[in-house]
């Protein structure tokens, strides 16, 4: 009997808790709400800086595209033959680095002598 009462009580407790939400007083937005909505609308209707008409002329589009193709071709041709590329600078090799900075090369074979 006691258990059934407990089971019956639980849902009512939850419903009572959720029901408290109905008693929550509505909050008020800050004063001058309408003025702020109007300001937002006014900002929205401000004309955007138009894109200049010459941007859309076909000559500019074709020229831009041609430049892009030309650059791609130049890069492709430039990297096709690696033999043509300049030799690495002296400092890129180990010996070159030692020579350039006037460092003595450590000789592992004669180190213990």
């Amino acid at each position: 009997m006691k258990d059934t009462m407990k089971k019956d009580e639980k849902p009512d407790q939850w419903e009572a808790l959720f029901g408290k939400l109905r008693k929550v007083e509505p909050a008020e937005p800050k004063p001058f709400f309408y003025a702020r909505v109007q300001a937002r609308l006014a900002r929205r209707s401000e004309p955007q800086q138009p894109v200049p008409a010459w941007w859309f002329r076909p000559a500019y589009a074709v020229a831009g595209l041609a430049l892009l193709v030309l650059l791609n071709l130049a890069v492709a041709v430039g990297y096709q033959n690696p033999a043509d590329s300049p030799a690495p600078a002296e400092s890129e090799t180990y010996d070159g680095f030692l020579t350039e900075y006037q460092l003595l090369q450590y000789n592992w074979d004669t180190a213990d002598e």
Partner: protein
Amino acid sequence: MYSEPELIENLKRKDEKAFRYLVETHQRQVYNTVLALVQNAEEAEDVAQEVFVEVYETIDRFRGEAALRTWLYRIATSNALKVIQKRKAKKRFAFFTSLFGSDNQVNYHPPDFHHPGVALEDREQMQLLFGAIGRLPDKQKVAFTLHYLDGLSYQEIADVQQLTVSAVESLIHRARQNLKKKLSGSL
């Protein structure tokens, strides 16, 4: 004072008086619905303003199939959910960036929400309840909030969410179950 068809007609003609009437009549309803969902006063104010701007700009597309109030609820809830989604993305991003940061802390923590209309003696309990509502899945959150806070009937909620009444019943039932699970340890 306007009748609804009259108000809609005037809004379509971009009549300022009609728009002012709409805002002043519904601002409280829209603000409170949004506030309960986003649980942040500044964000709620921003979303509420955006709702009316959207109404002004899209009133031509309003075909009158639902009541104006229902349409407002629909715009308000969907805009509020967008803000919540953005916030979640921000939180995920903050967590991700924190993995590489020096402090190793999640940077974005929304503060606990205290609804200004809650009675003082219920404040702690309601804070926990609002926190749990905030963690419900979106559809459940909207249905539950519209029912308990806005006092909408299942039919009205079905119109707002564009669902059947039985789907709304199921959403609210699942929301209750989830809330009980979430709160049973802390209340």
